[in-house]
């Protein structure tokens, strides 16, 4: 047991950075990594960022609050000195980012003492010399912060609970209020208590660093396209990358640093990045790369649009692929444009997780442990995951430009006719993307450009609906979106945003809203009445598209002129 605790300890302190990342070891991290951000945060703010030195299991119940550690403050103060002040240096000159240099792991007490010795000794020495020094008394480091270290448990329903079928399970619901979805997503579940651990509430001090295309391009240029500096398979294969060895396989490329394969992604990244940057600095090269926390760990995410002109990494991947695994599968292959997706993502890891392998290697048809038992079909189709095709597209549809129509429409795989859009069976379908035609060619001639709705004429002047103008604006926005131009397969698809559930044909009149939405409130509550339908459709779209009050009014007076009395 203690061995494990020490292993955790070494791992945690290896980098001296975010503790929470290691504690939060939930395997199914569904969201992609937040990627490298644009501006560095303010210098003073970075100095105030801290991590907790906590080693779960090593010390049992703590007598004092865990220590807050300000790494950036230390690097700033010790700028003139080397990392060696705190971190052990190997014979070949590289650093291991662990602390203290020689932890005494015989017992909890000795371990504690090695921390105390390392910190306090240095602090008091510096204070004696009259240099800037850190605290030496207990309470100055062990500061109790009630906002942290909270573990909340949330009661959940087991996955077999069906809220629609089991409408009378009032008794169970007295304690378990959340349906099963939350439990599955949260990862850690105590089935005895039917409770999900919500948070450890150790706030990550630094946002994760994402290696996006811009950062890759920067390295590419600085290293003069010597890919092998970072991508190599093993020490033996540290040669110029050839066609066969070009793709770094899994974590093999970390072997030199981590023969046992026990280090986390974060720890290896720190070992490799910082050591390389330090070595370049020592050699006196011009472009060295950052070595302090705040220089890499910046807030915010650089959006894909901001990297339009950044060249994408060269890879052996074909530009267009027909995703198809064997001829036995029922669906025809799905046509996929890899290059188009490269242009609209922030980094390779938006889809590829931390390796550059093909999806099917980990996500086999039956599922493997490596692939988190997510099957091949699910890897592409899971609606709730931002890694999957469907999930990512669903997220895209939440953008204001799309959400106006899509927030009301049935989504995802519930629309069975949508399968063929991807599963076309031929690469030719990739050429399908084309602009939506001008609305005049679709709207029947008998339809006026604008008309009045007099439903509330007792209270207000008639409301004007500028039909043609609305469709023109929508067409304009749709034509800007690559996703829409590809997936709106018919010329008339756009019309379905408002004219839902009605047959649509070019130049043919569609049934009026009042054909389904009656003037009276229906007692089965399946659909809103006419008044509700108009308001929900118009205002719902205005709200989602987030337009200005002038162009997309969200108040009564915006559409309805007051009657003069």
């Amino acid at each position, binding site marked *: 047991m203690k061995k494990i605790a020490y292993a955790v300890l070494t791992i945690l302190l290896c980098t001296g950075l975010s503790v929470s990342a290691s504690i939060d070891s939930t395997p199914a991290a569904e969201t992609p990594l937040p990627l490298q951000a644009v501006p560095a945060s303010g210098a003073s703010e970075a100095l105030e960022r801290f991590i907790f030195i906590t080693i779960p299991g090593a010390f049992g119940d703590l007598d004092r609050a865990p220590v807050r550690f300000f790494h950036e403050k230390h690097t700033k103060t010790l700028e003139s000195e080397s990392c060696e002040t705190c971190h052990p240096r190997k014979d070949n000159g590289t650093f291991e980012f662990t602390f203290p240099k020689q932890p005494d792991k015989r017992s909890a007490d000795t371990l504690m003492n090695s921390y105390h010795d390392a910190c306090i000794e240095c602090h008091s020495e510096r204070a004696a010399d009259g240099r800037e020094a850190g605290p030496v008394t207990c309470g100055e480091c062990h500061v109790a912060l009630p906002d942290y270290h909270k573990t909340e448990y949330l009661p959940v329903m087991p996955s077999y609970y069906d809220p629609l079928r089991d409408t009378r399970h009032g008794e169970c619901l007295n304690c378990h*209020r959340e349906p099963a979805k939350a439990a599955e997503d949260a990862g850690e579940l105590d089935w005895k208590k039917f409770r999900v651990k919500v948070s450890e509430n150790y706030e990550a001090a630094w946002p994760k660093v994402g290696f996006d295309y811009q950062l890759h391009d920067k390295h590419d240029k600085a290293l003069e396209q010597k890919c092998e500096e970072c991508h190599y398979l093993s020490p033996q294969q540290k040669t110029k990358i050839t066609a066969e060895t070009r793709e770094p396989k899994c974590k093999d490329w970390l072997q030199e640093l981590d023969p046992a394969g026990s280090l986390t992604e974060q720890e290896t990244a720190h070992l490799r990045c910082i050591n390389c940057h330090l070595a370049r600095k020592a050699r006196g090269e011009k472009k060295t790369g950052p070595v302090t926390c705040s220089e890499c760990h910046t807030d915010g995410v650089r959006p894909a649009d901001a990297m339009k002109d950044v060249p994408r990494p060269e890879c052996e991947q074909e530009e267009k692929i027909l995703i198809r695994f064997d001829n036995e599968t029922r669906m025809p292959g799905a046509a996929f444009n890899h290059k188009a997706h490269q242009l609209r993502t922030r980094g390779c890891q938006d889809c590829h997780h931390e390796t550059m392998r093909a999806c099917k290697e980990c996500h086999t048809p039956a599922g493997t442990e490596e692939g988190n038992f997510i099957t091949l079909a699910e890897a592409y189709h899971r609606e709730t995951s931002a890694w999957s095709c469907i999930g990512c597209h669903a997220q895209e549809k939440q953008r204001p430009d799309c959400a106006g129509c899509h927030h009301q429409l*049935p989504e995802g795989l519930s629309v069975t006719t949508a399968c063929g859009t991807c599963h076309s069976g031929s690469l030719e379908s990739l050429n399908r993307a084309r602009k939506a035609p001008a609305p005049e060619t679709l709207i029947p001639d008998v339809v006026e450009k604008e008309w009045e709705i007099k439903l509330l004429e007792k209270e207000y002047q008639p409301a004007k609906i500028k039909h043609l103008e609305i469709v023109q604006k929508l067409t304009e926005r749709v034509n800007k979106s690559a996703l829409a131009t590809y997936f709106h397969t018919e010329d008339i698809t756009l019309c379905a945003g408002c004219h839902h559930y009605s047959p649509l044909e070019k130049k043919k009149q569609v049934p009026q809203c009042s054909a389904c939405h009656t003037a009276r409130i229906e007692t089965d509550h399946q659909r809103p009445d006419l008044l*509700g339908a108009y308001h929900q459709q118009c205002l719902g779209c205005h709200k989602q598209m987030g337009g200005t009050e002038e162009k997309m009014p969200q*108040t009564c*007076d915006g559409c309805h002129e007051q009657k003069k009395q």
Partner: protein
Amino acid sequence: MNRRGFIKHISSITGAAAFCAAPKKSSAQQGRSEESLAVLVDTTLCVGCRACEQACNEINPDLPLVPNDFFKDDSVFERRRRMNASAFTVVNRYQPNNSEAPVHVKFQCMHCLYPACVSACLVGAMTRDASGAVVYDEKKCIGCRYCMAACPFQVPAYEYASILTPRVRKCTFCFKTRLKQNEIPACVAACPMRVMTFGPRAELITIGRTRIRKNPERYIPHIYGEHEAGGTTWMYLAAAPFEQIDLPKLGYHPIPGYTEPVQHTLFKWFLPPLGLFAMLAGAMWYNKRKSKQSGDDT
């Protein structure tokens, strides 16, 4: 259910309620009838037009008439309002942490299934109708305001300004003005966004769950009021945590369930008075015997 059936349904419930108001049950027992009516409020739809406030003001002639301009005035959203003697319902605007767009929430009497005000009322001025409405009778009211203290949602207001005939004021669920005429509450009818759905409570719960299931991203997976305080007639769906939109975190146990067992057990079989009288009788008997004995001595 068709329209005719629906109306029959409502009228039979209210009729039956009027007919057999007699059977005296404890308020904790009378609560969850399957037929009771309810309203489901979908706060994700509300745009804060306050048509409901206006309709409420118009349908209740004993409320002070407020000019139309007041209901067009957006500045009321600047502060958190509460129901008062001149308004049975208010709409507030919130800015929860997880959303950019403001959220509007309508408040009124929740018409609990197990109303604490009914339990607290000494004279039976508050009653719960089988239709779901918690009805106030100003003729019986003695003005003790226990109902105001008992309400977990702090709904009832009081006419402090009226010196001679102050009343407790709260939403009536349009019980006398509309429900009895087979009409739906005025605010529900007036809402242009159809934020509120009116119908049998069990059906509304199914509708609410269907909405949550179909749009898991849009809603917090919980119907507020389905179980809170033993269940309420007005239930809410929301995208933001309910505490952030002023719907308090309450237990699922009916509020009168905490007090009534104590009171009812304590006073069962007339026990405390009997005990007191027995004690007094004992003391009397003892004193008498003592004086008798001392009398004997002399």
